[in-house]
């Protein structure tokens, strides 16, 4: 059973002139796999990840996530799919600055509405503990450092226990110690919970610790 199955994904950008950022990308990831996506800056890693995360729908080819075709679904359906099945850590840590760290983590779960507020808060504090941010839970997100924000963003990606977690350099702003903590969490999630992990990374050590490395060059896959 594939967690991710991408067929003939091609994407064009039209500025400054039309060019193919991604051409004929074909690959699949199994459930519970921990995959690293590497490649030179500007080769199209982030672009691919946005397509895989269903946020970018402007592409050719087909995409299946969790055995469900997501190509051509409505925006609202994709929103619901992301909410329930996907966790995402952005390259530039994006939090809602007026909300506390805890509230940022809770929001996707509140939106899902599966548990009571108390349960969600409890779970959110657990996730913050995992990334070592529980003592900053009540602090407003806008007042956290870059690395702290990134850790809160990781906790937020985990809150709904998604089938697939995607990260665009999720440890880019972290020191060695914290990078290893995050790496450890992601590995455990894939091995113990069978959650699928796809991360873009520039860190060769990080990539080496994952199950599989996919390398990209100029919008194509060179090593699967």
């Amino acid at each position: 059973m594939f967690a991710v199955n991408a067929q003939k994904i091609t994407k064009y950008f039209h500025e400054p002139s039309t060019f193919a950022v991604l051409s004929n990308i074909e690959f699949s990831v199994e459930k519970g796999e921990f995959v690293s996506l590497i490649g030179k800056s500007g080769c199209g890693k982030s672009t691919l990840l946005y397509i895989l995360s269903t946020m970018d729908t402007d592409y050719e080819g087909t995409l299946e996530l969790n055995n469900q075709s997501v190509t051509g679904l409505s925006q609202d359906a994709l929103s619901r799919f992301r909410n329930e099945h996907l966790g995402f850590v952005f390259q530039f840590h994006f939090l809602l600055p007026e909300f506390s760290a805890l509230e940022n983590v809770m929001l996707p779960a509140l939106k899902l509405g599966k548990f009571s507020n108390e349960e969600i808060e409890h779970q959110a504090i657990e996730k913050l503990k995992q990334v070592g941010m529980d003592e900053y839970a009540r602090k407003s997100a806008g007042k956290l450092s870059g690395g702290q924000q990134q850790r809160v963003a990781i906790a937020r990606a985990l809150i709904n226990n998604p089938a697939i977690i995607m990260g665009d350099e999720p440890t880019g702003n972290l020191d060695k110690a914290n990078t290893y903590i995050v790496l450890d969490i992601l590995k455990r999630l894939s091995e113990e919970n069978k959650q699928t992990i796809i991360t873009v990374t520039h860190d060769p050590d990080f990539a080496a610790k994952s199950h599989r490395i996919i390398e990209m060059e100029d919008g194509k896959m060179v090593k699967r």
Partner: protein
Amino acid sequence: MKSFRLSLKIALVHLLSKKKQTIIAMLGVTFGISMFIVMISFMTGVNDYLMDLALDGSPHIHVYNPVKTKRTPLSASVYDTSKTQIFVHHQKPKADQNRIRSGFQILQEIQKLPYVTNAAPQLSSQVFFNNGSLQFGGVMMGVDIERENTMYKLYEKIESGSVEKMRSNKDGILLGENLALKLNVGVGDRVSLTAPNGSVFLLKVVGTFAFGMTSVDETRCYVGLNTAQKILGKPSDYITDINIRIRDYNQSTAIAEEIQALFGYTAEDWKKTNASILAGEIIRNTLTYVVSAAMLIVAGFGIYNIMNMSVVNKMRDIAILKATGFEAGNIVSIFLLQSLIIGLSGAFLGMFIGALLSYGIDQLPFPAREMIKLETFPVNYEPIHYILGIVFGFITTLFAGYFPSRKASKIDPVAIIRG
């Protein structure tokens, strides 16, 4: 419900993060609604006051016989008008032209009509009041004073003397307050009056009244019906008007038409008599709604602006919310709630301030005592105006907030997250 609470929570955080703009936008609505409340309370106050005046001062339906100068000449009944041309130059009206024939019989018939509560006979005529060598024109109304009292609540309008004394004084007269002033007479004094036929009578002033309208108080006087007939040299069944009160004064037009058709005399309802007052009412109402609408539109643009700015400022937040699973509808409700909170709190504050201002106006002394008699500005406190205020505030902000909210919901998260 859960998603509403979540949207509300996010909306409140957004509002609190821009307190200044929120308050300014709110005050715009407050201003619009409070002006609406003040204007409509005052304008309807004026309307109602004038309406009361009109209804107090004139009968609901007035039956009379208008003077027709032009009439078919007698010779037309003798000659065949299709063959003979008849010319009569400068016709003169007949005597007794405005008499209502068998008036008391008609009066009784009218009183039997189901929707009529009261009807009174009247003999009215132009007269002159003599004050030394000066004469003042006036209108004498010969009335059944008891009925007049119940129909117009004359006793409420008495300024000096009393209505009761009319009963014991056959030659008693009630004078309009301003008329008495002009004649320089008071209760107990005698006043000299010249009828159209030239005969002069002395009457005893038993009281003065004030309807509050100068046009009435400066010219009108009441005498007993019999006295009026005597003054004018008419028989005791001679009347010129029948005044009618009906159960529902809003139906006056239809009933007047019916009475006119039944008895053949002109029946004019109070709406026609007071057409100018009613026209003023339409103008005042239009003014109120136009000015209030203009102010609400300005307030609406204020909200629109601030919400638009807020959407631009919160683009990143919107992108994150959408990326983590919020649907377009959730985003719309987050921003629509913000503008509704601004609008409704502004409207409630506006109602409160509007009520205070109305009360203030209510306490102000009314300056123009010459025209109409009024102590303070007339103000109404109708709950429906306040409900309207809230509804208007709600609708304005709904419109003002809708377009920015839709814009927010259409934001493409990747475009922003890509950086």
